């Protein structure tokens, strides 16, 4: 498969995922887009393995590795900070002195709020990865001008 054909296939899969996402929102079935997303990513990887004219050399691998590592380093801190906050919400700490009233149920974040936070985290991860990738690509000479 040629590189341009792969990009076309990738675009078609992305469009199909967008349509499935919209459909699952309409039907209120989150499982549909979750399964479709996994299938879509697997299809993209399978298609990428068939590409013959795309060279992924050691410099590309290094850029990807460095960008991924840095993204994860920043992301896990933000994710853990949020998760610790969420754990605090579900842990019930008894109050002293004990009150005669019945035990309060833990205050949970509403699902919509959780969705917004997860969306924020997802966007953060994407922006971090793109930013670090551009940084390392520049560092390892991706935007160097050619003298030939």
């Amino acid at each position, binding site marked *: 498969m040629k590189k341009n054909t792969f990009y076309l296939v990738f675009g078609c899969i992305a469009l199909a995922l967008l349509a499935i996402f919209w459909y699952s929102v309409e039907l209120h079935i989150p499982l549909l887009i979750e399964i479709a997303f996994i299938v879509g990513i697997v299809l993209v990887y399978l298609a990428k393995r068939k590409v013959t004219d795309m060279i992924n050399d050691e410099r590309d691998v290094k850029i990807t590795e460095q960008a991924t590592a840095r993204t994860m380093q920043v992301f896990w801190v933000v994710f853990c900070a949020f998760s610790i906050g969420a754990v605090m919400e579900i842990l019930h700490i008894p109050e002293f002195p004990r009150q005669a009233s019945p035990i309060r149920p833990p205050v949970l974040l509403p699902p919509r709020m959780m969705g917004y936070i997860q969306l924020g985290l997802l966007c953060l991860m994407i922006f971090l990865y793109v930013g670090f990738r551009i940084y390392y690509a520049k560092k390892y*000479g991706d935007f*160097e001008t050619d003298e030939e």
Partner: protein
Amino acid sequence: MEILKPMKNKIKIFRAMHNLTQEHLAQAIGVNRQTILAIEKEKYIPSLDLAFKISRYFGVNIEEVFIFDEKTPTIIS
């Protein structure tokens, strides 16, 4: 903090001697042209494997293409 010792190279000179373009050299050793450009500009230090491939392509020893200058270490983040 990572200490990187600068690695100089003479790929450009060897290319000129063999009348090769970056594209031709890249194709011959199985990398992108941008990688050859980055190595020539000393923006990227190739792996030992790639360094051997380049020097063997020119039919010379690795020390003739790549010069390890350990006297002037550079500190990079």
